[in-house]
């Protein structure tokens, strides 16, 4: 039978609860000692609420600005020739600010990549 990480952790918990801290650490192996040596309690990462709000506000203002001037924007952006820089540039610009907003939003609601 193979022992999964989960099983290993659970048996470590059982030993820890019974006061056998050393055995628990032994079961967890290098992982636990490594974490222990770094900091006794894992630091709580602060969530980027402020960044989310700032980038969100920037992004919304950009969207509002564009859509309130819809007619002018669509007219200029579709003139062709060198004016390709307008739509492509706008797409880049939005991907930076709105992309940053989206990234911070996901972190703020607790969705982070597995470490």
């Amino acid at each position: 039978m193979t022992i999964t990480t989960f099983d290993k952790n659970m048996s470590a918990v059982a030993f820890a609860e019974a006061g056998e801290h050393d055995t628990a650490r032994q079961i967890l192996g290098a992982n636990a000692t490594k974490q222990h040596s770094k900091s006794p309690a894992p630091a709580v990462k602060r969530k980027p609420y402020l960044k989310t709000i700032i980038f969100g506000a920037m992004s919304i203002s950009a969207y509002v600005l564009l859509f309130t001037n819809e007619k002018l924007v669509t007219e200029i952006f579709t003139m062709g020739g060198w004016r390709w820089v307008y739509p492509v540039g706008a797409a880049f610009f939005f991907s930076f600010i709105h992309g940053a907003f989206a990234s911070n939003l996901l972190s703020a609601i607790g969705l982070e990549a597995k470490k």
Partner: protein
Amino acid sequence: MKKLLLILMLALAPLSLLAQSALAAGDGPSKDMLKGVITQVNAAERTIVFQKDDTKEFITLVMGEKMLPEDMKMNQKVLINLDKHAATANTMKDISIMFIDMSVSKLLALLVIGAVGGLLSGFIGSGGAFVMTPAMMSLGVPGAVAVASNMCHKFPKAMVGAYKRWKYGQADIKLGLVMASTAVIGVQIGIKIQKYILNQFGGAGSNLYISAVFMVVLVFVGGYVFYDAWKLAKGGGKETVSKLAIAMQKINLPPMMHFKTAKVTISAWITIPVGLLTGMLAATIAVGGFVGVPGMIYVIGASAMVASATELIIAFVMGAWGSVQWGLSGLIDIRLALLLLATSLIGVQLGALGTTYVKDYIIKVVMATTMLIVAVSRGVKIPGYLIDLDLMSPISANTLALLEGISFWSLVLALGSAALIIIVAMVKGMTADRHSKRALAGVSNG
């Protein structure tokens, strides 16, 4: 490294312009399409005066047989297709208003397809394009504008997704750039073949060719990926390099290239055909990733995780290149591109972080499921094209309408089921991760 990547990505946009002029042919709109404004309508003579957008010159156009003077909307930008085969010159085939009026329902529809397309894209490297263009067209957007706007939303989305997955250590930049440069040439070849078929067999022949290629590629490649994923799921999810890839890696034909993230050393002569095919397929069915990702997995020998991440780099380069093309002809409706981006930039990052919680084979499952259902959507369209070519006796209008319905809903099903598998796998992975972290925290505190 972060800075280097940004500079590299920014430098690629102007570079793509150079590639376009060097190759002197693009996947831009057809030459028989006019863009401009109608300034006068003469209902009695069935003619209009039209001011062309690019040269500002006024020309007189004749309405096609089935066209009505009421359809000639003045003082609005329109797209006109000319009928090449008409008896009189300058006869119009069809006319469409370039910018749709944005209603709340259209806006919401764009946001929803953006989110699902983004999620899929972040997870399997491609996806969305096969449904976004038809979806926009069903909202009333002219075909050329739908293709152009989709292209302009695709490259920023792919860029953000590629950046995220590169940060997770999954994207192989070198492999992506090598594949992309050959794919750009593949697109040119694809367009040449398309044009040849269009000239030889007309519109219906071209449609039949596209659908047939779509079906064959999707059924064979999708079927194989599905079989592989099923085998992996049964065997506990341990991925092995395919026998074909191992054989290919043994071919010692210089120049040999080493791809660090993909952990592969392979001759450039093997990557070239894979890149070319990706480009050719992208030009034919608009989803190069359906051959690019399996190609990188089974021919080059990258893992599904690395292949799907690397595909985003290819999508970025090709999308940026395509956007410049369509931008030169002034056909991008930036409103559509930005509305799709509003949710797809969230979706793509969610999909990207989702890959860190799942086993490698889940990516294959999602990819195969999408490919096989999309194959159905194209397959049911084949009878219609065969009838157009007089290769099949006509069937009732009701049956044709039913087939159209099946085609549309299977696309919706493809997206929906893919999104569902991703979300379920992600939630499962996150819950398991949280449990093990909590257990660990309990031990170190207790």
